[in-house]
């Protein structure tokens, strides 16, 4: 899978959920590269702003979109890594 495809996949996900991808293209591309690198290395798209602990149950939570992203977008206007942002943020 390529960066463009990953970005398109998350753009569609964001649209379905009622939020947006970060309008800063360079931020989105950097995160998408991180997700792709981690997928190639560890088999899953772990968030590039979170540590892989080695605890399977905990690490499942950091697969993008992560366990916390909805709450973070609601409370702070964006997720930790800044991939997803609230409309009118």
């Amino acid at each position, binding site marked *: 899978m390529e960066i463009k495809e990953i970005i398109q996949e998350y753009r569609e996900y964001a649209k379905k959920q009622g939020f947006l991808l*970060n309008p*800063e293209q*360079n*931020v989105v591309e*950097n*995160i998408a*590269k*991180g*997700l792709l*690198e981690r997928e190639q290395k560890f088999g899953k798209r772990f968030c*590039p*702003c*979170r*540590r892989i*602990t080695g605890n399977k149950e905990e690490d499942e939570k950091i697969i993008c979109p992560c366990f916390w992203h909805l709450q973070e977008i609601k409370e702070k206007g964006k997720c*930790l*890594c*800044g*991939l997803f942002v609230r409309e009118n943020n």
Partner: protein
Amino acid sequence: MTLPDAKEILVNKPMIQNLNDENFDKEINGAKKPVLVDFWMQRCGPCLKLAPILEKLAEDFSEKIIFAKVNLDEAPATARKYEVNMVPLMILFDKGKPLSGFMGLRPEKEIKDWLDQSLEKNGN
């Protein structure tokens, strides 16, 4: 805001030390001044945005604080020890012990005020 290239973050930055599992304890415990450690990762957007802010603050606080960076991928043992599970995370150490810290991207003024307050509280 322009996102700096992650490769540029650690080159030609004499004001900021690069720490890893090999040198972390030695540098933190042996420092004559408090040390602000920026835990970061290469593909973390907020970390890259924070980098130029910290470079500026490293110059402003050069007489009071040592600024350091820890790439989580190069310091897994240190990350586990301090339970750093997400980045960017700042921890201010003094005499080897964590004094204060914060998580996430913040504006320069807010970080400056936090550093001033932390130093004052600690009697530095």
